[in-house]
């Protein structure tokens, strides 16, 4: 079972290639405002996260996730199920 820190580290590593502006990554960093991702980037990133953790993040769930911290929590919960 991965700890939240391990999940967070993996999520940050996955953000890397998409973080064109070199934004500092914190729990509260938002995908839309801070990272300024468009819907296409979001799709590619979500696919990468899904493949890394072997989970599905439905579009219904994606609508609720705004920050990196919320994503890590969601991943932890999905891996628990």
């Amino acid at each position, binding site marked *: 079972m991965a700890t939240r820190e391990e999940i967070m580290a993996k999520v940050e590593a996955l953000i890397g290639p998409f973080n064109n502006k070199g934004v500092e990554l914190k729990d509260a960093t938002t995908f839309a405002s801070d990272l300024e991702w*468009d819907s*296409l980037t979001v*799709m590619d990133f979500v*696919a990468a996260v*899904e*493949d890394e953790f*072997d*989970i*599905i993040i*439905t*579009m*219904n769930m994606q609508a609720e996730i705004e920050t990196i911290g919320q994503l890590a929590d969601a991943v932890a919960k999905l891996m628990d199920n």
Partner: protein
Amino acid sequence: MTDLLSKFDPLIQERETLLATGVKDPFSLVMEEVKSPTVAVCNGKETILLGTYNYMGMTFDDDVREAGLTALKEFGSGTTGSRVLNGTYSPHRDCEEALKEFYGMDHAMVFSTGYQANLGIISTLAGKGDYVILDIDSHASIYDGCAMGNAEIVAFRHNDVEALEKRLKRLPEEAGKLVVLEGVYSMLGDVAPLKEMIRVCKENGAMTLVDEAHSMGFIGDNGRGVSEAQGVIDDVDFIIGTFSKSVGTVGGFCVSNHPKFEIMRLVCRPYVFTASLPPSVMATASTSIRKLMHSGNKRAHLWENSKKLHKGLRDLGFELGTPEAQSAIIAVIMPDLERGAMMWQALLAEGLYVNLARPPATPANMTLLRCSLCAEHTSEQVDQILGMFEAAGKAVGAI
């Protein structure tokens, strides 16, 4: 008071900026006169139409128009009622019979538009706890059908069989699953690898729905669509289509062999809570559908047109949406909206109408000049079209 329209300010600003450059508004063209499926008068000028969905040119077919006129006289101008109350006339039933004959399927249900067919079927089939798995480039009506229902929505990368399979395998085995695919994706005119995708869906216990809006009448030996052409139509659970493209009128439908399909008429809200189509529309649709069953020569000519235009545009130096002609849609990729609009206007000045498509309708934020061919375009018209593209492309520096 908060102005509820202020959320559209960025779009209003973008339009104003675009129009300030002097281009005509590409989204408010009026056709003053329509001479045939391929020629209209726009701004007083005779214009070749290369941006309609009139793939098989049925809008001016003599039999089709005659059938509409007769039904208009015999049944009146409209039904003023829902299909499940007073809105089912014999032409509605006959149209569903025509669809069953066309597809060789057991059930057919006609909706008032293709948009409503997707909206109704998807939202009704997939309920709470079920999953809809869709291609990320799906049409707005598919997304809206998902939004209207209560299912969990899972998107996968466009036309990526492996991405679809991976996601299906991660979903709970016992959960209801509906995979929604399109035969032809209308923005780039590319075709889905349905053979592999339908197999993967079957292997993973998912039901399948294929929207064949842009392939009906043209693709496949009998014009049944991409699922026919790839030999998997018998494995598809639901096919969605429209009358507003090859059939040449308006309306939508779903056909299926599912033994319980008829119950959909009572539980599908966009079918129940709206007025049925006018009987004249039903008569034109059924006449057109039956003629499309025997239109092999027109299909062959449309393929010739599509291949010729694709090769010609590529040879002129335009960047196209597909490596070869895969459907009747050829998409020319423009560098940005401003140059797209300039090119669109230059083509119109030459006497050619194409569709200007922009985000969010397009994938990957592309600006496209979408050309859709008609079986009634002559080979000479395609030559003329290529000449216009060359002149306009050089005038605006696109080639």
